[in-house]
């Protein structure tokens, strides 16, 4: 496939994709036929060598269990694990009033709150306020919590452009927790979480921000955001799989019952009863995901080195260009048009089922996602069973967008 150079290529992007891709061996390794055009970072991001090296260094140089080892390798492991916690804390602008709990991912972080806080604080008649655009991981845990406690679910609706509707009336004295997605993994919408948190506070509700799509792409400042909980995943921000974060207000975490129980989260144990370790360790039962937390620390170093503001501007330029290109194609329908958005777009191509589209684009080395994007209620409201999604990150550039649109054109030719 020859790539037509579009005049827009001469626009400059904040980051040099080719230079950045050099740090990600997968782009070399998968580009023998076609340049690997990875447009699925909202599902999981690629991993720079720096992160892989940090993980490998743990295994090959100081592999040991943490916190209780009185020998050098164990002390190094503890130091690396705890300093990864500090890095993550700094990265999201958390301060002394916050604690960082390592989990397997955003999903576990949200479940932790739905169990340890939800099961012990929600009562019949209470309301859990979500939005209609939640990812399943911030919806189904609350369905279960509601079922078990008798609390009710309420939803802030979204309108056709993919933005939340005004929802002041949804916040009442019955509202006990407000849990909302920061950046939509479907429309890319950056939701007005500051406003929502303020409204929640005005009725005394606890707040959780599902930041799985925002921490990887936006400059975050936990102190000014001032929610009670923030949940996100390492694998979407250049980190390893198998690690995520719950950042919470220490005071609230201290009041909560533990979630998982076992080694490490205890202070004293007798056969009949136990007492708990300090926060955050109280919520880290068992041997932690040591290598993965360390890898996440390296990812955070990498991202900070580039700068989150720059990354956001880079993605904004890419999505702007993508929308221009897609809107120029008669067969393409784009869903949503939020004014404040990240580098994510969902669309459909007339006459081509999104799964076929994804399969056919792969022929040209273009990897997009097709399906419900773990947001079936959004698909339901849009009246489609699935859509195609392209999502961008710091290693993408205008060429990727060109290859996407050209591959769409040739897919259309192929299938019809």
């Amino acid at each position: 496939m020859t790539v037509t150079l579009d005049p827009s290529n001469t626009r400059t992007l904040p980051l040099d994709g080719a230079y950045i891709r050099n740090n990600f061996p997968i782009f070399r390794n998968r580009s023998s036929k076609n340049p690997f055009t990875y447009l699925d970072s909202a599902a999981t991001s690629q991993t720079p060598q720096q992160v892989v090296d940090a993980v490998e260094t743990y295994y090959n140089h100081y592999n040991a269990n943490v916190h209780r080892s009185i020998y050098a390798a164990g002390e190094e492991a503890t130091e690396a694990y705890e300093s990864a916690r500090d890095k993550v804390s700094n990265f999201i602008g958390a301060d002394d009033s916050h604690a960082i709990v390592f989990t397997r991912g955003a999903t576990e972080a949200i479940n932790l709150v739905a169990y340890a806080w939800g099961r012990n604080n929600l009562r019949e008649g209470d309301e859990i306020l979500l939005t209609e655009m939640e990812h399943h991981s911030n919806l189904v845990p609350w369905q279960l919590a509601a079922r078990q406690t008798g609390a009710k679910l309420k939803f802030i609706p979204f309108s056709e452009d993919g933005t939340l509707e005004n929802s002041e009336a949804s916040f009442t004295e019955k509202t006990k927790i407000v849990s909302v997605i920061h950046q939509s993994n479907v429309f890319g919408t950056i939701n007005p979480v500051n406003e929502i948190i303020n409204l929640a506070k005005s009725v005394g509700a606890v707040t959780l921000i599902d930041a799985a799509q925002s921490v990887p792409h936006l400059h975050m400042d936990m102190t000014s955001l001032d929610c009670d909980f923030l949940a996100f995943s390492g694998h979407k921000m250049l980190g390893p799989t198998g690690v995520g974060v719950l950042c919470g207000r220490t005071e609230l975490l201290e009041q909560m019952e533990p979630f998982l129980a076992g080694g490490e989260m205890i202070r004293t144990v007798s056969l009949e009863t136990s007492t708990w370790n300090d926060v955050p360790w109280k919520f880290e039962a068992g041997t932690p995901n040591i290598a993965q937390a360390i890898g996440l620390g390296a990812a955070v170093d990498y991202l900070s080195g580039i700068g989150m503001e720059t990354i956001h501007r880079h993605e904004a330029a890419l999505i702007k260009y993508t929308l221009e290109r897609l809107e120029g194609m008669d067969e393409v329908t784009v869903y949503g048009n939020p004014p404040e958005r990240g580098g994510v777009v969902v669309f459909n191509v007339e006459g081509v089922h999104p799964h076929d589209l994804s399969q056919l684009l792969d022929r040209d080395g273009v990897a997009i996602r097709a399906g419900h994007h773990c947001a079936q209620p959004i698909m339901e409201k849009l009246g489609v069973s699935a859509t195609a999604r392209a999502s961008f990150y710091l290693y993408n550039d205008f060429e990727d967008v060109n290859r996407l649109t050209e591959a769409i054109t040739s897919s259309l030719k192929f299938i019809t």
Partner: protein
Amino acid sequence: MDDLRELYQEVILDHNQNPQNFGQIEPATHSGDGYNPLCGDKLSLTLQVQDDKVTDLRFRGSGCAISKASASIMTTVVKGKKVVEVEALFGAFHSLVTTGDTDDGDLGKLAVMAGVYKYPARVKCATLAWHTLKNCLSKKDEVAKTE
């Protein structure tokens, strides 16, 4: 370069564009719905079965090219067949799309689906209509799922 031609054979693309037996039989002796949880696509099947023979069948629903073509081809192959023959065909078809095994001489037109086995994520597309058919025939009233 175009390995995908093996998956998307011309015949498949034709059936996708012009599906056979698309619609609904009313009244039907058997009917049922299928659901592919991987993608959310749905398929409805209505049948006329007389004297242990499938005399007529139609399908409706949304789906990808593979699933639509597979349903369309299935209807043309199954129409007029005895229920026991259909069951045998299901077995042959299932091993065709999961292993690429074309040994079963009776596959006939179904053989165009041989390319599917190389794409595990698409096997459920190819079998959706067949699972639904099987459920209809065994008169189970539940929604068939592709596994």
